[in-house]
């Protein structure tokens, strides 16, 4: 009798356990199915764009639409250079986004460094100035900026595109947080060794900030590479357009040839995508930093 009760409790226990286990497996399968569906929603547009950019025009405009096509061609990638000045767009984007990134890395880290590790008159005021600057949207002051650039003959020039973006309040904020986190005795020791302020900054502090610098680099690069309104306003001729502004104006709301437009879209996002594959953690870090609160 006693033995039987022990047996049944064991049995109940083990069915409970296997039930629990089965529930867990089912839950994990449901979870993976939902996530895979979401992945499909995110990935499909890109895959379809990529595949279609290699299709003949008549295979793109079929109904019902097809994912794959019998024949593939490079024709769109050749045609797109003829139909829009894409090479110029690429060049302008690389110069604008690249130079802006490099200069802002230097200027933002200098300002962030001063705000983080130096004591001076008006420090709090400068800090609040930067914090408030972060919240001022570009569209609010774009018209006077356009007039200013026009008066200085800087419309349609690389200088005009780069200089206003050569520092960002967010970049300063990000670098400041980075420098605040470095150990206090580092610069004091360096000062005792007779290093001057610039040397301390470049030889000791910057090398320790590489991860944040990388995160800021990809952050500003992506922002400027993808920006539409800013280059749209500060450039008026087609030869100075960047990729987003050029593509947007080219496609407008009426797309007459799909193939070349798709090829152009692929070309415009490919460089960032390649950088993303190799430097993913820095992209994510930049976004995470933007959500950091003090």
């Amino acid at each position, binding site marked *: 009798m006693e033995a039987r009760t022990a047996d049944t409790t064991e049995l109940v226990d083990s069915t409970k356990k296997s039930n629990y286990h089965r529930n867990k497996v089912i839950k994990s399968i449901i979870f993976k199915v939902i996530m895979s569906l979401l992945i499909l929603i*995110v990935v499909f547009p890109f895959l*379809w764009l990529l595949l279609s950019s290699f299709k003949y025009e008549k295979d793109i405009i079929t109904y019902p639409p097809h994912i794959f096509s019998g024949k593939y061609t490079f024709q769109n990638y050749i045609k797109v250079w003829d139909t829009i000045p894409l090479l110029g767009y690429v060049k302008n984007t690389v110069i604008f986004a690249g130079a802006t990134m490099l200069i802002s890395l230097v200027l933002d880290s200098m300002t962030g460094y001063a705000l983080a590790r130096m004591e001076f008159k008006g420090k709090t005021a400068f800090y609040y100035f*930067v914090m408030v600057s972060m919240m001022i949207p570009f569209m609010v002051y*774009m018209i*006077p900026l356009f007039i200013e650039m026009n008066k200085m003959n800087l419309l349609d020039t690389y200088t005009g595109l780069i200089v*206003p973006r050569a520092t960002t309040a967010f970049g300063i904020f990000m670098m400041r947080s980075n420098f605040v986190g470095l150990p206090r005795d580092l610069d004091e020791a360096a000062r005792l060794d007779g290093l001057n302020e610039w040397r301390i900054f470049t030889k000791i502090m910057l090398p320790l900030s590489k991860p944040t610098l990388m995160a800021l680099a990809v952050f500003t690069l992506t922002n400027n590479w993808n920006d*539409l309104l800013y280059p749209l306003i500060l450039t008026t001729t087609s030869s100075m357009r960047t990729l987003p502004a050029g593509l947007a104006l080219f496609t407008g*709301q009426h797309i007459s040839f799909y193939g070349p437009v798709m090829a152009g879209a692929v070309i*415009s996002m490919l460089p960032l995508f390649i950088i993303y594959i190799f430097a993913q953690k820095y992209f994510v870090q930049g976004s995470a930093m933007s959500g950091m609160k003090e």
Partner: protein
Amino acid sequence: MEEIDTSVSKKRSFFRFWNQPKHAAYLFMAPSIIILLFFMVIPLIGTLGLSFFNINIFFTGTKFVGLDNFVQFFHDQRAINSMWHTVYFTLLETPTQVIVGTVAAAALSRTTLFNRFSRSVFYVPVICSLTTSGIIFSMLLDPNIGWIPYVLHQFGMSTPQFFRDASLAMPSIAAMTVWKNFGVTMTIMLTAIQAISPSLYESAEMDGANKQQQFFHVTIPQIIPSLGFCVMTNLIGSMQVFDQIYVTTAGGPEFKTESAVQYIYSRGFSAPYQLGYASAVATILFVIIAILSVSSNLYMSHKEKQMR
């Protein structure tokens, strides 16, 4: 000899002066501050100034008109509509993006291979420009060749015109924006969720809380500050919506998707190039955004104090 000496020592003392941190700081900050002053602060003041003038892009017939531009705004149905469209977009986009991003972050918070892969994938649209997203979705939603109408049709639904349908255009744009940007919210929320101390979950488990209860009673309260930040930045960002509308519908059909920034842009930078009036509209939009950001800032810090 003496002269050289003094010049050397002058140089030295000059160097010594600027090498003191309390002075060097200004040199370190000078370039950034000058740029911010010249290309942000001055134009910002300029916006307010311009809104009192009738001024066009060719600077012909510039005239001081006082508050006329602001008065005109309240009689300009298209301007007021553009504000409403912006609010409509914000109300559609912000909650959806925050919810999708937060749920994705919560679901993917454990670091497994599958989860890491999913996170990487969800971030890809973030690095894609709104212009490119707009181009892709114009084609995917195209009633003649698009996949989405086709799939809906397969499920027996009628195939709407999406971007060309007055009532569906804005929701379509909002959905596309969520698709493009929820990775940002996910990343921010993921950082917040992963920062929660595991001991909180352990004690909740000991109290017999199941996973759902844990989510609502441990996770949510812990991530409120980050959640608030996401809502706030999303609200403010959505109020400035431009790129995706410019590329997909250009404000149509019948100005039904024209946002405030889109209106400012077309007023200022296409005929009749009314920079003064466009500045007045920009000033109004700025006041709205400023009220939003200041009040949500105050609300959040009040909430945080309450929780402490």
